[in-house]
């Protein structure tokens, strides 16, 4: 490791510790007062048509949605997860909410309602085309390179704007809202939408297929390295409203893209539903990195309010040597039901899943991944770090499946749980299926506690209790943080610290 690397990392570590001291608890809990337009509460075919019409969709899309909706009506909510929450009344939710000012679609960011722009500014996501400097403390000797990150900002049901579109277009990369893609690039959407997560996949994905309002769309053409990081920032603002976004990413042969996703919501007393679908298609020799920092409002200490997050994310390594890496930092949501998965269809394709899931207070998380090995010599790696504090319950649920044709494939799973306090729980539920004789699956799991000896050791060296916990937890999640892009790693580290505030003592 070079000196510069070391110093940069030192800077990152420092960041967490400082954050613990400087920040309050959930800092994105404010709301934006803005005039909204809502669809009537509830879901039926008319609502599905209304959403389709608001997005000015072609007939085929409306039909696709209706088909999904009809299917959904025959399905029942899955109950196998280790989650306890009150019955969700699907007819008591608004399925569409958009700022009035978005009625006439702004042609460029200059036309977007300043209030909306201010919202993102306040969230630390300026919707301006500017360089984002890696502001690492202590990195004086690091090369001062500016990095560009293109942002698609989704506010409740609509995309507010997308930055750097022109510059990306020059490289042949399409980055826009999914509603725009349906209008402008129907051939791509028709070909790939639902090809990874079929309409009928599961209760929540099917509901999403019927009522998704917006989300992001990415297409990276063959042999193209996307010139900057792409990101989508989801903000749920309206009350009693569900957010159903849909993301579709296609990495054509030999291409590469790194995509980041961030989420926040105001503090509300009532729980809110979020049911997203992310589909990633990866063709021959292409690579996609998908990183999430999920910081939805987790509910208060008594478990009131918060986001119910039921998300289906799946990547299809469709051709040879396709590669995907999921990295997630899950700190928010009252309920998390999420299993970003990899279908390793191509020969020598590879899937990686790095996860930090933190549940504090009354939060419940049931999260993990699925690695479906279909192609020969495919590889997968799972590193899951679950942290439970307060009265939270945290479950890792994972499937590793080696199909008969996936000969000589390999999986390595490492699944670690850390408990803080004695009222929380950690659970590990691995499913392993191997249907050929040449593949190898390894699974390692540990459960540990932040122990008093470690805390005392840190404190005897001058750190206060929260600094000490931050340091210990940081060590625990290190492997995963290192998988994140730099800017995200810092944000994630701060979040880890904040989410665990008040978990000791």
């Amino acid at each position, binding site marked *: 490791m070079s000196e510069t690397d070391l110093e940069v990392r030192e800077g990152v570590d420092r960041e967490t*510790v400082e954050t613990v001291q400087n920040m309050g608890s959930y800092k994105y809990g404010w709301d934006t007062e803005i005039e909204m337009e809502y669809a009537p509460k509830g879901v039926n075919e008319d609502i599905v048509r209304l959403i389709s019409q608001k997005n000015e969709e072609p007939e085929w899309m409306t039909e696709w949605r209706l088909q999904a909706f009809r299917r959904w009506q025959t399905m029942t909510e899955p109950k196998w997860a280790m989650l306890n929450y009150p019955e969700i009344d699907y007819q008591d939710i608004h399925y569409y909410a958009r700022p009035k000012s978005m009625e006439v679609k702004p042609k460029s960011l200059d036309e977007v309602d300043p209030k909306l722009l201010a919202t993102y500014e306040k969230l630390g996501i300026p919707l301006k085309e500017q360089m984002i400097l890696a502001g690492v403390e202590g990195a*004086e000797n690091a090369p001062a390179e500016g990095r560009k990150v293109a942002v698609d900002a989704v506010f409740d049901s609509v995309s507010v704007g997308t930055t750097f579109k022109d510059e990306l277009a020059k490289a042949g990369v399409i980055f826009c809202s999914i509603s725009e893609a349906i209008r402008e690039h129907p051939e791509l959407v028709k070909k790939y939408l639902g090809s990874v997560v079929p309409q009928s996949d599961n209760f929540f994905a099917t509901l999403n297929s019927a009522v998704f309002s917006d989300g992001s769309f990415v297409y990276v053409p063959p042999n193209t390295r996307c010139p900057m990081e792409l990101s989508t920032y989801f903000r749920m603002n309206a009350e009693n409203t569900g957010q159903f976004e849909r993301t579709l990413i296609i990495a054509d042969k030999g291409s590469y893209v790194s995509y980041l996703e961030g989420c926040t919501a105001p503090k509300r007393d009532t729980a809110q539903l979020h049911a997203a679908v992310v589909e990633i298609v990866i063709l021959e020799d292409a690579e996609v990195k998908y990183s999430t920092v999920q910081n939805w409002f987790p509910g208060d200490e008594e478990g009131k309010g918060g986001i119910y997050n039921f998300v289906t994310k799946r990547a299809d390594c469709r051709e040879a040597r396709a590669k995907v890496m999921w990295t997630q930092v899950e700190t928010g949501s009252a309920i998390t039901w999420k299993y970003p998965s990899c279908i390793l269809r191509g020969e020598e394709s590879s899937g990686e899943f790095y996860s930090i899931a933190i549940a504090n207070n009354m939060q419940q998380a049931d999260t993990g991944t699925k690695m479906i090995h279909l192609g020969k010599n495919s590889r997968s790696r799972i590193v899951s770090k679950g942290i439970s504090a307060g009265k939270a319950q945290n479950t890792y649920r994972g499937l590793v499946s080696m199909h008969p044709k996936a000969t000589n494939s390999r999986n390595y799973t490492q699944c670690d749980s850390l408990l803080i306090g004695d009222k929380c729980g950690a659970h590990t539920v691995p499913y392993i299926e191997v249907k050929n004789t040449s593949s190898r699956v390894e699974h390692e799991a540990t459960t540990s506690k932040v122990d008093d000896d470690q805390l005392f050791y840190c*404190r*005897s060296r001058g*750190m206060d209790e929260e600094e000490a916990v931050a*340091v210990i937890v940081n060590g625990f999640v*290190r492997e995963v943080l290192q998988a994140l892009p730099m800017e995200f790693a810092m944000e994630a580290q701060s979040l880890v610290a904040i989410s665990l505030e008040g978990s000791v003592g």
Partner: protein
Amino acid sequence: MLKIDNLHVKLEDHDKQILKGLSLEVPAGEVHAIMGPNGSGKSTLSYVLSGRDGYEVTEGAASLDGQDLLEMEPEERAAAGLFLAFQYPVEIPGVGNMTFLRTAVNAQRKRRGEEEMSAGDFLKVVREKAKALKIDAEMLKRPVNVGFSGGEKKRNEILQMAMLEPRMCIMDETDSGLDVDAMRLVADGVNALRSPDRSFLVITHYQRLLDHIQPDVVHIMADGRIIRSGGPELALEVEKNGYGDLLTEAG
């Protein structure tokens, strides 16, 4: 510097008295050794002074430079200049040794209202001090104490001591588990830190460490009290005759 007066300590959860009226004074610049048989309360003394949970002070007082130690949190005691070199240094997986040290140094500086050390300055100083202790750069990058040999762990404690520059260093059986070479390195590290405004309280079972770290005063501890104090020759006496005579003498 360190003043302990009639200290009585019991375990919080059990009705067991461990320290029974211990008094001790370590003036600035002096090295005092505490020797005593197993179970005499030596480690308890070091834990109580540094603020570990699980002990209850039922009587007596302890102060550092006039500040009441017993009223302070462990991190406040550290910032006030107290340092405990652990008998069994704790492992913290995933946390780089360097990160840990820098967090500690800056936490103390911040608490004292001093400016924090930049990454660059820190790196320079830590490398210098590590070199003197024959700690190689690789060890600085490894997670705190994880996979360290016994000798490496103890040298690492001394490195922390060197970086934190405490006024009062308590060393809890730092010699346990060390071979002769490792003990010499540790002793050299400690000797290099000796200064007129820094004091040491060296807790040990055996005299051999005191061959390398010359104490000004030796205290013999038994059954929760100091039963005898004297010069370095006291340690030699123990080495020769064991604790038996001293204990009988003290009744």
